[in-house]
Every structure is written in C-alpha cells, then in structure tokens.
C-alpha cells in the first residue's frame, strides 16, 4: 500500500513539473500561429482564430532576412565543426598514444582553452580580424569558430583514443605502419562514435553562438542566425507573433539533431560538461 502511494506522488510530481516545463514551448508555438491582433485580444492559451503561420514566416524569413541569416549559420556550423573535429583529432592522437616530450604541457595548453572565458578573447579577436581584413567575412568567422571549437574536441577525442587498446597500436607498428598511417587507418575509423559526438556538440555550439557573431559581423551576408534573432527583437518590437516565429525558425536544426541523435547529444553534455 505504502509503495503505491509513493508511486502516485512520484507521478504527480513528474507530471506537474513536465506541465510547467512545457508552458513556455506551448505559448511560443501558439504565438507563432496567431496574428498580432489575435494575440493582443485573447489570453495566450486560447487557440488561434485563424492560423497565419505562413504570413508570419514570410514576414520574418524574407522581410527581416531571417532566411539569409539561417543559411549563413547553416554554412558556419557544419564547416567550422567538421574542420575543428578533424584538426583536433590530429593533436588528440599523439596526446593519447605517442611517447613524446612535453605531452602533459601540450595537453594542458589545449585543456586551458576549454576553461578560459570567451571574454578573454573577444576584444583582440575583433581587433585582429579588422587588421587581417577578415572582419565581417565568411572566412573570418569560420576560422575563428573553428579555433574556438578545437580545445573541447581535443579533450574529447584524446580521452576516446586512450580507450583504444595499445596492443593495436603496437601490432601496427611491428607491421611497419607509419604514425600517420596508424592515425588515419586505425584510430580515426575506430573513433567514429567520438567524432560524431564531438561534431554534434560543436555544431550546436556554433549554431547557438551569439557573442562572436555580434562582435565579428556587420552585414546581412555574414550575420549568423542568433545575431539575426537578436536584431529581430528590435525590428518587430513587441510583435510577439513574429518574434515567436523567428525564434522557432532558429530552433529547427538543433531540434532535428536532438530528435535524431539524442543519445549522442546527452553523451556530449555529460562528457563535455566543461564546455560553456
């Protein structure tokens, strides 16, 4: 008897929390379906009189350039995260498996990159990108996003490479394989799960970044999507139907990743807890 009461209390608690957690989503999705007039006339939970989602999408996607920003980020996020994973794997391999001098110091250097707050980089990165003439360019943003992603990838991949049995490495050495050959033909293919986890977390990070986008871009052709969203706030001030639509547009890629690769996503969070 006592057992079932505990069970009931547990379910009630969970359901109450879940409802509370869903309200923000519910009210945002509903707002995106309504017109601003409808929204102002009735409380937020009422169903829309007429669904005008398409109108809202046209107004944000076209007129406020959200579509352009969306595709900018759709370029930055995969390019920067794939480059970062690849470049980081180069460093992670010797850090995990080769006996070299200064291994600890080098690992520490990359580890530091994970903990140092972005505020320590952002002003010089802005000044440098102006001087190097990569300010407000696609290339500039990709280079900087890639660099910012590298330390975390090194950490994650190095830890994964350590779990690959060293017998495998030794056997390949005896067979006369070069270091690069071992890295390319044995370690990289075996580390596929870690590569995917690293890619996902970094894709999400670049997609969700606001700070560097704000500082390093100044035109429609380069702005990442979150900066676009922050500008939408000024463009359609208090027109919640349009703002909600804009917000939901930016959610699509992370949401798709979350749904299709939830396991990897959760692993990335619990492994990469150090990442801001």
């Amino acid at each position, binding site marked *: 008897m006592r057992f079932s009461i505990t069970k009931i209390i*547990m379910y009630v*608690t*969970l359901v109450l*929390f*879940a409802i509370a*957690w869903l*309200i*923000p*989503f519910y*009210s*945002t999705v509903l707002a995106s379906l309504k017109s601003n007039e409808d929204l*102002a006339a009735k409380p937020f*939970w009422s169903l829309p009189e007429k669904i005008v989602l398409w109108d809202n999408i046209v107004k944000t996607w076209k007129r406020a350039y959200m579509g352009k920003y969306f595709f900018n980020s759709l370029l930055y996020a995969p390019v920067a995260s794939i480059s970062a994973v690849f*470049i*980081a794997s*180069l*460093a992670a391999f*010797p850090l995990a498996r*080769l006996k070299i001098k200064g291994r600890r110091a*080098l690992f520490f250097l*990359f580890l530091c990159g994970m*903990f*140092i*707050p972005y*505020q*320590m*980089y*952002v*002003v*010089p*990165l*802005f*000044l*440098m990108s102006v001087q190097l003439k990569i300010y407000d360019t696609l290339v500039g943003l990709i*280079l900087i996003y*890639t*660099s910012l992603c*590298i*330390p975390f990838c090194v950490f994650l991949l190095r830890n994964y490479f350590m779990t690959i049995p060293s017998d495998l490495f030794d056997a390949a050495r005896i067979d006369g394989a070069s*270091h690069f050959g071992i890295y390319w033909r044995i370690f990289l293919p075996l580390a596929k799960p870690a590569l995917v986890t690293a890619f996902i977390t970094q894709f999400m990070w670049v*997609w*969700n*970044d*606001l700070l560097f986008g*704000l500082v390093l871009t100044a035109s429609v052709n380069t702005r990442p999507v979150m900066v676009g*969203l*922050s500008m939408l*706030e000024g463009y359609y001030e208090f027109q*919640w139907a349009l*703002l909600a639509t804009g*917000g939901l547009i*930016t*959610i699509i890629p*992370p949401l798709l*990743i*979350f749904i299709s690769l939830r396991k990897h996503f959760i692993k990335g969070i*619990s492994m990469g*807890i*150090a990442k*801001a």
Partner: protein
Amino acid sequence: MNREKITPYLFFLIPFIFVFIFLVYPMAYTIYLSFHEWSGLGAPTFIGMQNYQKIFVDPNLVRSLKNTIVWVVLTVANPVIIGLIIAITMSGQIKGETIFKSIFILPLALSPAVLGLIWLWMYDPRMGAINNILRALRLDFLCRSWLAIPGLNTIAMIFANAWAQAGFGIIILLAGLRSIPPDLVDAAKLDCRSSWQVLIHIIFPLLKPFFMILIAITIINSLKIFDIVYMMTFGGPYRSSETLALSMFRESFRLFHFGYASAIASVLFLVILIVIVIFIHAFERE
C-alpha cells in the same frame, strides 16, 4: 631515425597554429590591454592597475559584481534542488521515462538567445504567460512588469535560466543515481531503514562527486552568463541587471573602453581560475 622523432610533433603543427593565433595570442593581448587605457585609436597608454581599481569603485561595475554573485548563488541552488527532485522521481521504474526526460532536456538543445526570447515573451506584462496565469488564478496583485523593476529583473532571468538548465542537473544526477548498485540500497532497506534514511545515509554520500561536478560547472557557467541577459534586458533598465560579462561587452563594444573592458574580462578569468583550483583540490581530497 630522426624523422621518427619529428613526426609526432608534426601532428601538432596545424592545431597549434590555430590555437596559438586565435586563442593564446588574444588572451595575452587582453591581459596586456587591461593595464592600458585605449579607445581603439592611436597607441594604448599605460596606466598600471588603474583599470582594476576602477572596477571596485565604479557604481555600475559594483552593481554588476553584485548581480553576478546573485546569479551564481541562486543558479547553483537550481540544479541541486530541481534536478535532485526530478532525478529521484525518475530513478525508479517510471512509465514514459523517455518522454519526461526529453521534456526536461529539450531546453538544453536550444540557444540561450532563443531561451531569452521565449522568456521575454513569457514575462511580457500584458500578453505574456506569467501575468496571464496569475490573473486567471485571481492573483492579480502579483502581476509585475518583471523585467523593468531593478533587482526583480535579475531574479526573473535567473528563473528563466533555471528552466533552461534543470535538464543538465537531471542528466548528471540520474547518471549518479544509476551508478549506485541496487544491492546496496536493498541491503540498507533490509536493515529496516526508512527510505528517507536510505536517501540521507546511503545515497547522498555516494552522489557527492556528482554534486561537486554539477556545482563546479554551474558556478563557472553562471559567472559567464551573457546571452540570456543580452536578449532579455541588455542589462537595463539603467544598467540595473548587468552581469560582469555584459558590462564587459558594453564597455568594449558600445563605449569603446577597451582597456577597462579587458580588465573586467581578466577579473572574470581570475575568479573562474580560483573556482577551478578550489574544485580540483576538493576532487583530489575525495
């Protein structure tokens, strides 16, 4: 033979170039700038520690420091309390666990900028969900323009962030709870202990390392809080809800006090470094 010795280092060439140019050098330059006064034009003037001294007398920055402390203290309480409640309720055999888990974890997939926007809408004084629900419950006297009142706006944003970050606590603590061997709990129950005693004497001590990770990360992340504040209030009204990261942004990219902003960043860095060192020590003691 010689080539054999060099190849391991060749692996580092490309990663090192990237990290050096875009991370190491900028960091050193920020520290250099923090001892200078510079508006972006001409050469920086060396002024010693003046930027650092100014942080602790400038009323805007003192307020920003206070806000950041409020953020840290209240945000740490969140994953520990909400996360623990939900993790414990979910640790038993629960039907629909995947659905519940997804609901709580979903906000973690979203950008802090979107979270800011969603909660800006939630807090809208006239149309937003919070005031609407309060009115429906006949609690009109509790309705506020949440983000316009100094002091209250910081709390309101911390609440929004708690909604977003609870899933993080749940993931970590659930992993912790699942790592406890069930035999141990069963054995304790056979000793005629109540569930409450089992929780306090058996489960909590075993969860300690997980709590420590959770608290360390939460402290570090809330020290750096930026996106949500940028989207919801931009530190306003009248800089009343600024955090250190936001003050740093405003001083550099709105007011062009690059030296002063660098000093703020360096202080932030130093505080985070201290937190990390403290926690590493605590971990080694464990």
